[in-house]
């Protein structure tokens, strides 16, 4: 049997941004509303810092989503909050 596995790993997401880096579409789904946004900075004292801008958003279909922009690599990911 394999060992422990992390739960809730980020999954790559396809995001189109609007002004100010606000997500406009996520995986082709139109975004209706931004509920909250927050910044996480961690491991800044190491050679591999973690910098993420999280967005809690609601799609036009009424679905709650959490995505983040990896400010180090420039890639977008979706993740349950």
């Amino acid at each position: 049997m394999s060992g422990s596995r992390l739960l809730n790993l980020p999954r790559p997401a396809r995001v189109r941004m609007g002004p100010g880096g606000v997500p406009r579409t996520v995986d082709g789904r139109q975004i209706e509303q931004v509920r909250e946004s927050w910044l996480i900075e961690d491991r800044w004292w190491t050679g591999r810092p973690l910098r993420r801008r999280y967005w809690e958003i609601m799609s036009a279909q009424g679905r709650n989503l959490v995505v983040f922009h990896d400010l180090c690599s420039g890639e977008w990911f979706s993740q349950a909050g």
Partner: protein
Amino acid sequence: MVVCVHLPRFELTVAAGGAEALAGHALAIAPAPGGEARVGEVSGAAEAQGVTRGMALGEALARCPRLRLVAGDPLGVAQEWGRAARALEGIGAALELPRAGLAYFESDGLLGLHGGEEGVVAAARQALRRPVRVGAGPTRFCALAAALEVRSRRARIVAPSFAQGGAFAARGSVPHGSARDAHSTQPDHRAARRYLASRPVTLLGFRAETAALVEPLARLGIDTLGELAALGRDAVADRFGAPGVLARRLARGEDDPLRTHIAEERLRESLELEEANSGPALERVLGVLVDRLLARPERRGRTLRALTLSARLVEGGTWRERVVLREALSDPRRMRLALAPRLALLPAPAAYLRLEAERFGPPEGAQGALFDPDPTSPARREEHRGRLREAVAQVRAAAGPEAALRAVCVDPDSRVPERRVVFTPFPG
């Protein structure tokens, strides 16, 4: 490194009575009695005539009129494959056995024992003592591709490359701070992806989850795994769903960890049948086998969790059925009740019946209370825990060791969501 051991056309070789019978002859495993009229595994000569596994019998005979059908032998295949698996376990390998004729194991823990990758491969060959294709690579799928590429006497080893520091995180599709960049000794997928890029998509046919994609991919003009890997994840997911996403991951050199099977001793009892080859008489024979199995001293009081019922049929061929009991038992009456309905699945009268204990449960002796105890009492809580353990063990017996996991909060207040909870094996 994952090592793949592949014995080509294993089922057909066993059913035909040896590899010599296949040489130059167009053979195929006949459809099971009462089942769909499609051929099973086919020989090289039949394949050269355009006959493939799973083809409708009529079409196969139209393409190759001299095709000879061989009755399937699931019982013989299970026995022969069991012997091969035990031989591989004898060199210290923890095996994943997706089907008869195909085995995977991790070589990392065996390198010191056998003297490097080549030593491990040589030990596997020596243990099996038959022509076998061996490949090794960073992932299961890559190792399979390597094994299929080589001839019997050689092995193909696809060496992984390892990421250095932050370079891996910067290039990979995993963000900083996630699981992979925390373990810099994890092989990256570039070596596997490079190796797989020029291989045909027909390799996906060796994996049950992705086998159905081979034909539509070919129709779309996607011939190599490199072409598949270059497609966007969303486009593949939209067209093919979860199997497509898995196929793309495999083509990109990604794969899940091996799910190794637990080696356990097996007990078996069998009887040659004279007249009692069907109906109530056969049920009585089954009762005798159950009693004899439970009387075996090697059982050491343990209950039985999973059994295999197999038979050799009067008109040729064999039959095999695995039964996972709802709870581990040692009561012959309840075992008979669970097993007897399976005899109705026999496609023809049996000449020989065998019952094999595959997995064991805890020792017998658990007794129910005469009166319903207080629901808050320690005895009741212990009973609930026992039932939960039993349920976990049943799920694992039916669906593999990773079927029951426990979510453990390791850092619930972490601001980084993936650091809060991990899956760990559920204590059975």
